[in-house]
């Protein structure tokens, strides 16, 4: 009658947090100017943001993704000025 033992899998997640479209990105602008100053004239636009990598356990990929999304919404990104993207990979 016992439920199947939950398997725990390991995942690596990368949360990339960038300024929302249209929101001023002073750091990106400063980097853009610096790159152009170094002669990288092929550069068009630059944005700067944060990346958070984390390892975690979850029953499956869907759960890992759901949890990391929750972390992003509650702590890692500020929805007023930032947007975020997730990448999740199962690890060894």
């Amino acid at each position: 009658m016992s439920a199947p033992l939950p398997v725990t899998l390991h995942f690596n997640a990368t949360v990339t947090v960038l300024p929302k479209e249209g929101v001023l990105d002073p750091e990106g602008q400063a980097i853009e100017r610096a790159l152009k100053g170094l002669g990288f004239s092929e550069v068009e636009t630059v944005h700067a943001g944060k990346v958070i990598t984390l390892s975690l356990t979850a029953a499956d990929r869907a759960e890992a993704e759901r949890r990391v999304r929750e972390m992003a919404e509650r702590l890692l990104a500020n929805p007023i000025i930032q947007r975020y993207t997730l990448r999740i990979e199962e690890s060894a």
Partner: protein
Amino acid sequence: MRVGVVLFPGTNRERDVLTAFVRAGAPRPRLIWHEESDLAGLDLVVLPGGFSYGDYLRPGAMAALSPVMTAVRAFAARGGYVLGICNGFQILIEAGILPGALLRNVTLRFLAQDCHLRVERADTAFTRHFQKGAVFRAPMAHGDGNYFADPATLARLEGEGLIAFRYTPPAGELAREANPNGSMNHIAGIYSANLRVLGLMPHPEDLVDPVIGGEDGLPLFTGLAEALAA
């Protein structure tokens, strides 16, 4: 003595440094714009504190690429004296003129408070007016002053006596609470191998006047004025 003070976009403690040299009896330094590259005739180049390029990306990273830094590198290689304070220290490090890196403070907060610095050697142009082992007070004001170096670099700095100042309590012993930014080996400032380039995080230039709260930082500037007197 001829002193040049470099101005990057975002430098904000240049006037503090000018005042400190004038109070030390030195001639008023000349301001050098970051796009200049002529340092001829100078005895000492100062990179003052501030937020060059807004501290964006990494403090000092963009300033390190400016024309004047190519000149400063050559100037230092010729044996010129260079003093980098706070953002100036970060720039020297990013430019590879001094080794290591300055990470974010362990507190993850900007630290603006007085600290105490122990003088590790008193036989350099910068510290000749201090006693070895003396402790003096200096304001600190930075977000990224947590000195880091790989083990080999750290061993070399220690072994060759290139640590200039360490954060300590007023009595001079080593104590973790007195090292608020978390620097390795409590390092607040280091020298180049020839002892002619000094980088440090705190601001002795902001404590050179009894009315402002003390003259603890003045010996650095009077010492330099004497050492480099033409």
